[in-house]
Structures are given as C-alpha cells and as structure tokens.
C-alpha cells in the first residue's frame, strides 16, 4: 500500500472540481505527476497542484492507493467520485458529489459534506463523521436509476431527498433527517436513527426504511400491518410495521404484492 498526502495550500476563488482526486486517477503516478492532474475552476482548466501540496507516490493500482487530505475541502467537489478501489480520507469538510458514482473502496470524512454525497453509488463505503446536506445517495436530477449498492453512513444529520430512486445498498443517518426519505425507491435500505420531519417513503415501490426516532408527519399512503422485532445496525428492537406507498404501483412476487416497508420504532 502507498499513501498520497494532499495538503490544501489555496482556497479556490470559485470551486475546484477535483474529479481527479481518486485512487484510480492517482494509481501508478508519482507525487509530481499527481500534482499535474487536471480539474476545473469554473471554465478554467487547473491542476491539483494549483490547490494542494502533494507528497508521496501512489501505488501501482487503485487498490494499492490511499489518499489522505489534511485540511478543509469545503470548496472541492467530486472527491472520490467514480472510484473503484483504494481509499480517500478527508481530515476536514468536503463539498458536493463526494463519492458520486463510486463503485468500490472507502471514503472517510471527519467533518461535514455538502449535497449529493454518494449520488448514484454502486458499491464501496462512505463514512462521514459530521452532517450531510441534501440528496445523500440520490439519483441524478431527472434520472430514475438511483443508488444501486454500497453503504453510506452519516454520523450526524442529513437534509432532504435521501436515497431518491434507490435500487439497492444501505444508507444510515445516525441523527435526524428532514423530508423525502427514499422517494420513488425500488429497493435498498434507509435507516434513520433520529427523528424525521415527514414524507417518508413517498411513491416508494419496494425497499425498507427504519426510523428509530419519531416521524412528525406520516405519509397517508402507509398502513400499519403489525408489530415486529428487527435487528437494525446490530441492535434488536420492536417496530410498528407499515406497508406502502399504497398510491404507487407495486410488483408481484409468488402471487403476493410486494410493498415498501416502513419500520417505525414502537413506543416503549
């Protein structure tokens, strides 16, 4: 394994689009070559070296490459996007599209992330110690093919539109979420450990949602069908089981209609 360390040396005037900050792009390159990899600032083509001091050479392959960014990346977009292996650690905050379209490997951010974290992700792991803004693990605007696999864990809270059009994978929000949890989803699992304002599972076809806190405004398209014991993220608890969205189309499997499941932690 080889480690490449990036240290921010300049805050971009606009936003630096760091789509080259991935183990895949770094693989097989020296620190000097990595500094020459391109990015965009507005319409101007810039390089990683314009904004970061690069030290350490990358490994032969993405899987052999760990990237550590020591400093704030609140104005650096697309970190780790489309990566297939290896790891990226950001000791600070990160901007939009962190880990977007990611297929494998690990991303760890000690601070907060902006919107579109893990958009249309297919595999790998994203761990955020802080909060995430909107559109965690969602589909691209207009697209009906959302997150397919992998895991996103936000230790803090998240905004709206979590797991839009999700087809697979797991999203865990350890604190609260705002509105639109798994809208239009047709698979996958979303776990919210805190409270949600509302619109949980709107137009959801298939998939599972767990809410361990309270839902302030319940969707009218969900119906309670029982109370069940479920193990969630390693802890077994009692949940009220709802099915829905009853206003949406649903597939059949072995003669049974398949609904989306909402497991809401039962009152103690």
């Amino acid at each position, binding site marked *: 394994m080889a480690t490449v360390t990036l240290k921010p040396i300049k805050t971009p005037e606009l936003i630096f689009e760091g789509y080259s900050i991935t183990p895949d792009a770094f693989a097989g390159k020296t620190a000097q070559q990595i500094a020459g990899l391109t990015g965009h600032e507005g319409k101007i083509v810039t390089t990683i070296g314009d904004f970061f001091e690069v030290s350490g050479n990358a490994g032969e392959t993405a899987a052999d490459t760990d990237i550590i960014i020591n400093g704030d990346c609140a104005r650096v977009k697309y970190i780790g996007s489309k990566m297939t292996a290896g790891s990226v650690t950001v000791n600070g905050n990160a901007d939009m599209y962190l880990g977007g379209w990611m297929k494998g490997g690990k991303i760890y951010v000690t601070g907060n992330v902006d919107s579109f974290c893990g958009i249309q992700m297919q595999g790998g792991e994203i761990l955020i110690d802080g909060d995430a803004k909107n559109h965690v693990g969602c589909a*691209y605007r*207009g*697209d*009906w093919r959302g997150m397919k696999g992998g895991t996103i864990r936000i230790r803090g809270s998240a905004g709206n539109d979590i797991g839009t059009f999700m087809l697979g994978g797991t999203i865990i929000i350890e604190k609260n979420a705002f509105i639109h949890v798994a809208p239009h989803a047709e698979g996958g699992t979303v776990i919210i450990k805190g409270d949600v304002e509302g619109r949980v599972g709107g137009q959801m076809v298939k998939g599972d949602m767990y809410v361990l806190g309270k839902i302030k405004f319940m969707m009218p398209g969900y119906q309670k069908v029982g109370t069940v014991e479920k193990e969630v993220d390693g802890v077994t608890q009692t949940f009220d089981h709802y099915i829905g969205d009853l206003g949406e189309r649903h597939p059949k499997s072995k003669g049974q209609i398949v609904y989306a499941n909402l497991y809401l932690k039962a009152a103690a």
Partner: protein
Amino acid sequence: MASRELIIKGGFVVDPARKIDGDVGDVAIKDGKIVEKVSSSAKVIDAKGKVVMAGGVDVHSHVAGPKVNAGRLMRPEDKFRAGIVRGNMAQKNGYRMESGFSIPTVFKTGYEYARMGYSFVMEAAMPPLLAPHVHEEIHDTPIIDEAALPVFGNNWFVMDYLKKGEVENTAAYIAWLLRATKGFGIKIVNPGGTAAWGWGLNCIALDDPVPYFETTPRQIITGLMKANEYLGLPHSIHIHQNDLGNPGNYQLTIDSLKLAEQVKPKNKFGREQVMHSTHIQFHSYKGTGWADFESGAKEVMDYVNRNKAITVDLGCVTFDETTTMTADGPFEHHLRGLNHLKWANVDVELETAAGVVPYIYDPNVKVCDIQWAIGLELALFAQDMSRTFVTTDHPNAGPFTRYPRVIKWLMSKKAREATLDSFRHKDKVIDATHIHGIDRELTLFEIAQMTRSGPAKCLGLGAYYGGLAPGMLGDVMVLDLNYKDMPKDPEKIEAAFQRAACFVKSGEIVVRDGEVVSNGHKKTVWVNAKVPENAQVKRDIAQSFTKDYTVDLINYVVRDYLAPHPMVIDVEVEA
C-alpha cells in the same frame, strides 16, 4: 474581402442528381452557389483521394419547438449522459457550448448536423399555435437550413371541411396557415387519432370514426392529399399513419399507402410522389402481440416498390437511450404504460397534441432487435433508393447523430452480422426477421440517393439541395473515404460520415477535419402558396379565433423577425 470563390479539387464526385458515380472532378462555388468554373484566385480545397457529395438533406427530424423543449426540461439526465460538456470541439474553437444527447441543445444540433455534412433539416411536426417557438429555436440553430411542417391531420378546420368534402376550402385554409406559421407543407400525425385522444380515445383503423367530427382517417388522408395537389405544394403530404408501433399494423400501413393510388402529383417542383410515409419502420410490424412480433418489412416494401407515387423514410432503431416525442398523444400514453418511465402530455387547443416519454432500445430485448432489423430491411428491400431515405425519426428511434451508423449497417453485411452476433436472443431475432439472409450492401451512390438527391426531390427542393449541378446551393461535403479503395473495416465508413473532412455550406467552409470552424449563415425555408381570396375560409378563421382559440388572430401569426433569414418558395395557385 476574402475571395467568394472556392474550388473543391480532384475528389471522387458522387452526385446521383446528375447520375455521376465516383468520377474524379472539381466542384466550383461562387457567391454561395455552384458554378461551372471559377477564376484562378479561387480558394482551393484538395479532395484528392476523397469522396465529394452535396450537403445532406434530412426529410424528418424533431429538432425545434415545444415538444423538443418539453423533452429537454423533463430529462436533465440526458445532458449528463452526453458526457463532458465543457471543452467540446466547437467550444474549444471559440464557438458555443454543446450539451444533450437525444435532445441536444440548438447549438449542438446545428454543429452535429454540420459535422455530418448536412445542409438542410426538416422539423417534422410544428404545432401551428406554437410556431413562434419553433421559429425561435430554428433561428438559434447554427449553420443548417431548416423548414418546419405544421400538423394538419387533427385540425378542427380541416376535419370540418373534409367531412363535407370541401377540398378547395381545406386548401385555402392550408395556404393561410402555411403563411401564418411560415410552414413548409402538410404533416399528418395519426389522422383523427390525436383528436380522438381529447376524449381518451384513438383511431386505429382507416374507418374508425373521429368522435364529434364525424370524419375518418381515410377521409382526412385522402382530402389532405387532394388539397396538397390542388395547391401544387413543393412537398407532398407527409404522414405518420395510424396505429404506430403496434404488432400487426403492417396491413393498415399498406391500406393507407394505397390511398395514394387515387391522386396524381401536380406541381412545378419536380416532385413525383403524392404521399411521403415517414418512419415506416414503426409501421411495418407483423404478429398478434409482442410474443410473436415479427418483421413486416417485406410486405410493406413490396407495395412501396410497386407504387412510384410514394416515398418513405426509415426511422431506424439505433440501440440508444433516447427520448420519444410525437404529436401522436395516445401512442405516448400507451408507451408509458409499457415502460413506466416519465411522461409528458400536451393538448394544443384546436390543432394537435403531443407526448414525450424516454425510451431505451436495449440490444438484450428481442423486440428492440427486431425493430432494428426492420428499419434496415426496409432499405435493403427497396428497389428505388431515390424514394427511400435515411432517418431515425430523431429522436424517436435514435438520435440523428447515428445516421453514420445506420449508413454503416446498410453498406456492410459484416457490420450487420456483428450487431446480430451481439444479441442475447440472436436466434429468435433471425427467426422473426429477414436480415440474416440479406447479402445486399448499399453503394455510396445509393447512400447519396437516400440522403441527398432523393429527399431533396421529395421535398420539391431538388433545384436547390441534394446535388452539385451549377445553380444549386454551394453545400458540399468532402468525406475521408477512397471511392476506389473502400475500407474493409466498416467502422471507418461510420467515422467518415460522422465527421466531414470538410463541409462547405452556402459557399463557406463551416467544418474542417471534423471540427466546426464557422457558425455559418443559416436560412429558414417556408412556402408561400398564393391562393385566390376565399371569403368563407377568411370568415371561418376570424370567427374561430373569437370563439374557440385562447389567442387573438393578430398574436397568432409568426412575425418576420422570427425568421430573419428566409428563403421563401412561392407557389402560384390558379383559381
């Protein structure tokens, strides 16, 4: 001022309009037009070892207006799927940014057509009420000349006149509407069916009644065909028949085509057909459902081959994720029920409707593969290539940027077999189609007939476009293909048609080595049919605009500033 003279020297000229097939020669251009010869100071383009053709003519493409924009609005992901939008070739050269794949922006539309050496494109369905929008987009599309066909097949005036058999009144109304909308000719989409859609119904047979209007698709098609020839318009009626896209529709298609036997062509533009049947691939289906779906290309083309009064365009499926859009409102609703994707539906008052649905032609789906085969079979069964044109019904069966791929498939059995081999259900596709047994490979001459001289003649524009005779517009494409030594690798054919080695439009070099080097000088082509004053039609129009329309007549007409570079084709109609 730079020389207004150009000479394209020493290429293999392929010009079916003058029956020239690969002779080495020069093409001279002066002041935007082709001339016999130019002075020695003319700018020289060396075409030695390359093929020289006229600019391409697209007879049917959806490139401007409200339904295209509805597609752009509802599919932001289409822009994302197009890949990196910054730093595209044109922008690198200092031209406008391009984006979008199946529903590209106006800039990308103009640039991509130009890179493919196309000089004229027909917007295939203009809702008359929204014609100003169509013209604004046309004006913003660089380089290529364009015209638009207003839709008439579900228009209240037309249906009212035709149920009473009033061809002259229909013609007077058409002449007025073409002038009001700066339109080119008569488009018919699902005659009667789109009007029926207002009641949630459809017309899927020639004698299905159109609710309220007490007419039928048969009456509408025949009546509009007669009105077209009464006026002597450059183009014939241009029809998208009833029951598009459904298994078993080939019989209805042939029955509709046979209506052309009742009318003779009458015009001063050299046009010989009375009916142009568009995207005929979608209308050449056998079978009783999707399970026994099969090709009806042979049956349909056998009829087309026998009837000289018909031209067709293919509507080839290209295996892309695309965006379907048509004035056939009920069809789009039906399609949405098949693929569960998003759907837009619009009603245009007294005139038409439209629907938009994304669609993925997946090579692993048997039905898509059979559709692909049908599109190509129609061309390969055709006997007269000057009546059979390359289209993808952009963007319905695929984006227009795939024409070079369609040309590759038509010119190379090897390329067709390679695609067949990639299918998961190859054997089932072979059973349901003819394509595997067809050895025919089209020549460059035949491709030029299908993309140049043929469509130009069909549109009545053969004096201007699609050929290289002196007096015609100076639109010339140089292709990186050696006529005497055609590449063994079919991919090279596709590449040559995708990016012109050089494209001269209106006497100006607009593309060099596949890159846009000028925004060109585009024109909007429209038809001014001058008919004798018809008091009744005038009164009917005035009355309808006070009673039925949401806009006033004065706000309906397309103002001149919306088409600031017009090329008006005048038609004098005797009483």
